[in-house]
């Protein structure tokens, strides 16, 4: 059972807070001044000290408690919600600061964590920042190579940098639940269903350039044409959007439930239904009329991509990229395995082609346990 030393000169307040703490199974030892607190700590050794703000010199009292009992976590309770004051008290050493009115949930959480304060981890996650690190690496390499001619140093750094860039084939992304990927010139778009947003990344650094939030949609697939971005959400709602700042919708189409992947071939919209496991070729009329339908030849398509006149799909369960016969899309011409997924740490959710390579975006397994990842794959044959 967690025990608490409660410091307050007001018997009424001590009783009020003790009742709340008692209801959540906390044992309370009251003290009305610092001398009383010393006695309680000496005799009962409670796990946590809770101190109530009662006069303007509360900060002084906190400081004194920290110097007297440096091993005891201190939770300060202030009279009004004053964030600046709370932060000041935390900087002084209070492990947590609560304010009136107190709730059982907050008391329980603060006491559960008392003595186990969290840490702050600082890291340069995004590749944009790597440019700075590359600079330091270059500088360091240059120092080591002191004595060599400028031309040699320059050539060496260039080779080193090029090698680093070409070896890097995966990038962490600042979100957890990616669902689709598409390229648009120098930019790439990635949908994240959990944050209900589309992220525009610069393909050079993979830094996020723009985030567009869809409050009423959960995007599961995207397709890009020269003038529009098509999105499909989890309910099967398909929307064509302008490529403006807000991606304003220009056309809403009939719902196609269970649609999990779309692609545009320049004339027809191709959709994949995950329930019936069928590929459909559709007109872009208001009903998205089906022109043809084919059984999917793989396990389950998670994404579709058109490159010129060839249709490719990401078969997520089998971790393969399939090339379909465009005249008979239910026939496979080639299968390209994705060894990046062989360790079972990620599941691919989106496929894109940047003009040179295939890329996949993936979510961690179990879902949400780590940040999303982006992989650059070798060029599959025949391309």
């Amino acid at each position, binding site marked *: 059972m967690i025990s608490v030393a409660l410091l307050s000169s007001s018997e009424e307040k001590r009783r009020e807070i003790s009742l709340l703490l008692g209801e959540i199974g906390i044992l309370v030892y009251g003290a009305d001044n610092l001398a009383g607190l010393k006695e309680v700590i000496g005799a009962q050794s409670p796990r946590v000290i809770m101190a109530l703000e009662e006069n303007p010199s509360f900060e002084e009292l906190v400081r004194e408690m920290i110097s007297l009992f440096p091993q005891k976590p201190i939770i300060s309770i202030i009279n009004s919600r004053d964030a600046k004051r709370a932060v000041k008290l935390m900087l002084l050493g209070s492990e947590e600061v609560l304010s009136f009115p107190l709730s059982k949930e907050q008391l329980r959480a603060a006491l559960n964590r008392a003595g186990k304060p*969290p840490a702050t*981890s*600082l890291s340069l996650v995004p590749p944009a920042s790597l440019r700075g690190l590359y600079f330091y690496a270059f500088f360091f390499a240059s120092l080591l190579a002191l004595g060599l001619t400028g031309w040699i140093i320059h050539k060496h750094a260039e080779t080193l940098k090029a090698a680093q860039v070409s070896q890097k084939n995966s990038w962490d992304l600042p979100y957890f639940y990616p669902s689709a990927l598409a390229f648009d010139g120098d930019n790439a778009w990635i949908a994240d269903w959990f*944050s209900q947003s589309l992220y525009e990344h610069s393909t050079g650094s993979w830094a996020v350039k723009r985030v567009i939030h869809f409050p009423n949609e959960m995007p599961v697939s995207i397709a890009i044409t020269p003038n529009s971005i098509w999105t499909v959400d989890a309910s099967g709602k398909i929307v064509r959007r302008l490529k403006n700042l807000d991606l304003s919708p220009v056309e809403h189409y009939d719902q196609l439930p269970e649609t999990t992947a779309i692609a545009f071939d320049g004339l027809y919209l191709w959709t994949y239904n995950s329930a019936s496991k069928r590929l459909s070729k559709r007109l872009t009329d208001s009903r998205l009329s089906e022109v043809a339908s084919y059984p999917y030849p793989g396990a389950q398509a998670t994404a579709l991509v058109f490159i010129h006149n060839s249709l490719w799909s990401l078969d997520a369960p089998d971790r393969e990229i399939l090339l379909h016969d465009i005249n008979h899309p239910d026939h496979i011409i080639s299968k390209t395995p994705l060894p990046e997924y062989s360790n079972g740490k990620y599941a691919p959710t989106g496929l894109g082609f940047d003009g040179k390579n295939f890329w996949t975006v993936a979510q961690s397994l179990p879902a949400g346990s780590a940040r999303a990842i982006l992989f650059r794959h070798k060029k599959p044959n025949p391309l």
Partner: protein
Amino acid sequence: MRKVVLPKAVPARFLVVSDPSRSEDWGRLTGLSSQGAVVTSLGPLKLGSRVLLSWEIHGQKFELEGRVLTAKQEVSGYFTSFIFFIRAPERKKISSFLIDFLSLKSGGASGIRTRE
């Protein structure tokens, strides 16, 4: 990639810009990168809400606007949210700070853990 861990999480204030009825709240930063910050607090943050986040690390003050991209309640009862920094210049500012800070701390100053 180098990572520095400050053993005591940095206290932070946050104001929910998209909800003017809510007063300024506080919590601790448990993660910071050039893209955003992870905030742990007793008060919840709504997914998608805009937040003005302020904190101080080693004498340097920051005040950045961000959007809550993930929000969940931990078993302890605390809420953990990832706040993505909306503005590119601000991300750049954090990035430069982190580059300086991480390179300075790579020697492993007292109480600070570094990982590669």
